[in-house]
């Protein structure tokens, strides 16, 4: 929602691979820009304090809490959100692994967990158990008890390695 005290200015970045030209304000959080403006509503807001990671998106491949990143910070960056992971209606291997392992319950943390996993596997295609736990510990899931999420991450790594060219 634009704030009447705050004038708008232009912003350009790429979102899920496609260029975006939009206008925003200095006070707008990236999450709000994505949810209200251009992206879709898959980016979820919970704590809005950069703690829970529900709102995680990838900015130039790095997981960021979009609730606590200003929209203007992504000028010229590549932003990846959950809506951009599917390829022609096909789930990404990470999404498929989360679906097949029932690595979610309420689903509110799921977009963030999946993007976090995408970033981890882009960096380290074969992470060991400690690395997986460490990465997943940057986000909160209140429902699952994490075990099934950890299994989904291992499974996703396996799937990606198997399908890698």
């Amino acid at each position, binding site marked *: *929602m*634009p*704030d*009447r*005290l705050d004038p708008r200015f232009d912003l350009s970045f790429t979102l899920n691979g496609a260029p975006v030209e939009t206008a925003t304000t200095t006070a707008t959080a990236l999450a709000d820009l994505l949810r209200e403006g251009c992206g*879709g*509503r*898959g*980016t*979820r*807001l*919970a*704590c*809005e*304090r950069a*703690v*829970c990671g*529900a709102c995680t998106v990838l900015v130039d491949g790095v997981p960021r809490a979009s609730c606590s990143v200003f929209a203007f910070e992504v000028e010229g960056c590549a932003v990846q*959100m*959950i*809506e951009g*992971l*599917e390829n022609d209606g096909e*789930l990404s291997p990470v*999404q*498929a692994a*989360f*679906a*097949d*392992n*029932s690595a*979610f*319950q*309420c*689903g*509110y*943390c*799921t*977009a963030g967990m*999946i993007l976090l996993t995408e970033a981890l596997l882009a960096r380290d295609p074969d992470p060991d158990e400690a690395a*997986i*736990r*460490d990465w*997943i*510990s*940057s986000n*909160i*899931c*209140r*429902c*699952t*008890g*994490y*075990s*099934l*999420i*950890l299994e989904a991450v291992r499974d996703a790594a396996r799937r990606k390695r198997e399908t890698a060219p």
Partner: protein
Amino acid sequence: MTEAPLRNIGRPDRRIDAGEKVSGRAVYTTDIDLPGMLHAKVLRSPHGHARIVSIDASAARAMPGVHAVLTRDETAAIPMPVYGYFIKDQPIVATDKVRYEGDIVAAVAAEDEGTANRALAAIRVEYEPQPVVTDLERASDPDAAELFEEPPVGIVPKYGQGASGELRPRRNVCYRFSYETGPADAFDECDHVFEDVFRFSRMHHFHLEPFVCVADWSRKDRIELWTSCQNPFPLRKEIARIFGLAENRIAVRVPYIGGGFGSKNGCKTEPVALALSRLAGRPVRFCLTLEEGFLTNTQHAAILKVKTGVMQDGMLVARKSEILLDSGAYSDGSPLVAEKAGYRIPGPYRYRRIETDCYCVMTNTAPAGPFRGFGGTQTSWACESQIDMIAHRLGIDPYDMRRKNLIDLGEPFVPGESGMDSDLRAGLDLVVRELGYRRRGGLEDDGPVKRGMGLAIGFKDGGGVNKPALARVKVSTGGDIFLQCGTAEIGQGAHTALSAVVAERLGADRSRVRYMPVDTDHTPFDQGTNASSAISVMGQAVDRAALAARAQILDFAAGVLDCPAEELDLADWEIRRGNEAHPLAPMIMGHFGGTGWEFVGEGFHKAENSHAAPLEAPCVFWEIGWGGAQVAVDTETGLVTVEKLFVTGDAGRAIHPLVCRGQDEGAALMGLSQALFERMIYDGSRLVNGDALTYRVPLADDLPEDFRSVTQEQGHGPGPFGAKGMGEGGMLPVASAIANAIHDAVGVRITELPLSPERVLAALAAKDGG
């Protein structure tokens, strides 16, 4: 019924919500956006207890972008501007007093949340602070301040054999539940009587999706409400009562809910949003922050005094308990939690005498309400700690002590109750095997780091009381299946499990079933998604609806084929008769013509009432959580590391194994964090850690190195295919299993949560000193 292997039951295939949830397309209430929608924010009390002398909202009303301001002046025109379960004591906005820090004083609807917040800052409120009540044990002292000088409207429900309730039994207590059975002199025959006191901490549910609703009351005689509420029909009734509207004028719609763990029931954001929407004549979105969530609903802190009489050989004889529940400033679900805590405190054991009083003590803190376990977490903590303490005092191994006293399969918990539907010893032995339970002293220590193991059995009556459930199954000409029932998908997997049941009964793949949106205008009545009741209660209604639809289909085909229906079977939308297969679609078109037909099956379930049962209906099923822990206690730092945690529940029949596993493991991790660190910290009436940064919830690296669960399928549940409910049991045994393991490791008994390093060190020092 067909003898063929089941095609939908017990299979770990993708949940029906998987595609939407992993792709980001799932719609929650937070995503609802209506044209012209305004945004609400509320002004909250900075005082724990104060009279409101005056409220001046004129500057806020005059601000551009502000469309409605709600204070006690406006709510005075609302027919019944208070809510609550048994006791209607919570005002939509404060009237004469505020009763906790965070109590809602005024609300604003504006073009955006920023404008609403600026308007709130312009509201002037003059308070006259009053002394606060925060100590559970002193709240009823004659000189304690009173939260309610006048008794709010309330009811005591009808109870059965041995149970009773009372409103306002003493100062600052809104409700008492009592239960007794057996001869009053049973303590006289005991060889030993042990009295112990346990303290239970308070958590917030910390559901990630905030409390949120979108309310549209822009047309005078029609309310449309989208809300993150697990009990849409009771909410509709409450809204009708508050605002004096007919229930058929109110549509409550429940999209996916982003977690609740008990909190998302009853009125939360809805009355404020509706009142604002009526004033503004526009739809209003009211979404709380996570910080406001802490101020809206919490678990009950508790003090549990347990007196147990026992024979020298470890046989339990009698238990008398007094429980004080910290209910916070408004009654919310507290009387219901009191019933359950009071009823469950004996644990799954056989006694000759049980006597319990449970009190809902009002304090100037956030309102407490339903929380996963629903009183059972508090009572399992006390009961399972004390069983171990008694075993040690008598020189009996805690495993043997439990085994000796557990209720048998089929044995009623108390007179008039339904029989135990799990083999409790089988579950305990499973824990012993999986954990590698060894009697005292069997584990290796590591210098100052000592190891120990502990067991516990959590126990609660599951499925709720007075829960009529209706379901409807429709099947179209082409065999597309519509499931209509009021169970909300809050993460527990109910939509998947219920759809699987329907598909199984209709000989179809689960993908043919669509779970229709929950909308009180169209969905058949249901009492709510709570008490682990989805599969055990609604499941029975859904099962009957599916069987009714199936019977109609077979009857129809029998008429067309001119044969008895008993000769026919239904599979893959064909009628099978011996080796013949008759596709249904052409048969239906041939008979009905036009655009075809829909078969509609209705199903109903309600547990029989019985005055012989203490809670007026025998328990639907018993939800049991068995657990075991191995800990390493660092005697120099007091740090407790849980090295192994094993939990197991009995699903009766696991409709979807991964869903069952996720329920037990998620619950167990909540229990683990409550045991070790997670709690709301109050300093007087001020919550000091009510935000995401300072309130610690468990992360993946808090998982014990060895963390496992097993879903038993003992097959005795009342639900379809023998299923029982899940979701709460896994939490119940964890804290006491860890406390018992600490005792096993270092010989100190901690009776207060959390089991923090400070407490362990203090207990060790006291032991050495003594």
